[in-house]
């Protein structure tokens, strides 16, 4: 079972999320507010990790929820959970921003590393959500340990910094084919270690 399927079953989030999206499509602001409370604590660090500047990350976050407001009907359940949909949206918007504004040159206000411990100083808006998030983060961290440092590095360069496989191959001075293989392996390991299905 997927890690997020566990999330869905334990917290009933998946069905709740899908219901929220339907309500958002019907222009229910309360539903968007609930979705914001649930996922802003995850999306904001993601945007911040990519764009590195707090104000910019907050703008990205706002744009993401405006996009959800406008595009709730474009969500396709067969292509993943609502959670993965909003995360992908946030990641892509963040990457677009650094590509268009060349934020890579800006000094980072915060040095955030993947796999860092969750901070206790910024509690989630809902204590139950905080416990749930911490539990999953722990599971994901355990899953990430099954990845080699190279696989993790390649995933981070691609996911958080938006580099293409060719760019990563040049940066790490290795063949493009190796980068592709490592990336695929890394994702498969992540899926499997987190409880995903075995590769066919």
């Amino acid at each position: 079972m997927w890690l997020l399927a566990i999330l869905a079953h334990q917290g009933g989030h998946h069905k709740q999320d899908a219901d929220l999206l339907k309500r958002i499509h019907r222009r229910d602001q309360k539903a968007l507010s609930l979705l914001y409370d649930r996922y802003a604590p995850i999306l904001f660090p993601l945007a911040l990790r990519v764009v590195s500047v707090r104000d910019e990350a907050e703008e990205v976050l706002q744009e993401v929820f405006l996009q959800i407001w406008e595009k709730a009907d474009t969500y396709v359940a067969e292509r993943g959970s609502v959670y993965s949909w909003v995360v992908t949206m946030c990641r892509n918007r963040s990457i677009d921003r650094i590509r268009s504004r060349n934020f890579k040159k800006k000094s980072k206000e915060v040095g955030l590393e993947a796999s860092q411990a969750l901070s206790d100083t910024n509690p989630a808006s809902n204590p139950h959500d905080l416990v749930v998030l911490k539990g999953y983060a722990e599971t994901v961290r355990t899953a990430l340990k099954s990845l080699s440092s190279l696989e993790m590095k390649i995933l981070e360069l691609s996911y958080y910094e938006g580099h293409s496989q060719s760019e990563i191959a040049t940066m790490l001075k290795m063949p493009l084919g190796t980068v592709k293989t490592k990336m695929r392996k890394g994702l498969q390991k992540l899926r499997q270690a987190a409880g995903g299905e075995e590769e066919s």
Partner: protein
Amino acid sequence: MTKPEERHKQLDLCIPYVFGRLNPGNRKQFEAHLATGCVICTKELARFNEATALLPLTLRQEQPHPKVKDRLIARLSSGKRVSEQEKKREVRGRGHEEKRTPVTPALAPTTQPQRLWFSYATAFLSIAIVAALALYTNDLISTVGEQEQRIIALRTELEQQQALLNILQAQQIEMVIMNGQEASPAGYGKILWDPLKKTAFFQVANLPAVPTDKEYQLWVIRKEEKIPSGVFAVRSEREGYFNVMNLDVATKSDFDAFAITLEPKGGSPQPTGAVYLLGTTAIN
């Protein structure tokens, strides 16, 4: 519905699609393929979407400023965009006391005409300097914007050249020359590919510009089968076009020809328009 053997060709596009690294042509092609309802690719895509979505869970939790949500709700309510000025005001004031620049005291009334004239002159000069600086800053912002666009274009070009270099460095290279057909006698093109890594360099020239609702589509022809392999547009007459793409063909013995047809924007599952370029493996 896509044939089973074609589904697997599209599977390789899942990861670059999830990471947003497919070129527009391949992205459209992949999305068109997903729209056909391919269960295998949809499931694979869902798996990779879920896997990558796990990564942010490990980041240090950070809360956005409460104003972000307030601003979002305000925008939904008003249906308008919050002005940039308003945003800047909020940013400046957040989390700490806003730094206040000492206000220049008002000019004291004076009975000395010379001093009054001097004060007016100073004020006028200050306004002129501020206006000039504003114009200069605008100009700089515009220049920086153009430079950033240029950097993005150069980076894309460099990436394509690097990919081309990788193909040329491959142990084995295949090439097919494409010639203009009746619809485009002056057109020509070529495809070089690495049959092991399935990456290809694709170049065409002298093709007529296409209307905005049309695109050229590349086909791999294998006996009676015509496999869609990407779309592209040429927006001005005589414009050269090249691209690096994934191409799931091995050696020339595995298929009969490459062809380029004019199709509705986004491409067609099967060719419907005239053939503009054709390159057969028998001749090449």
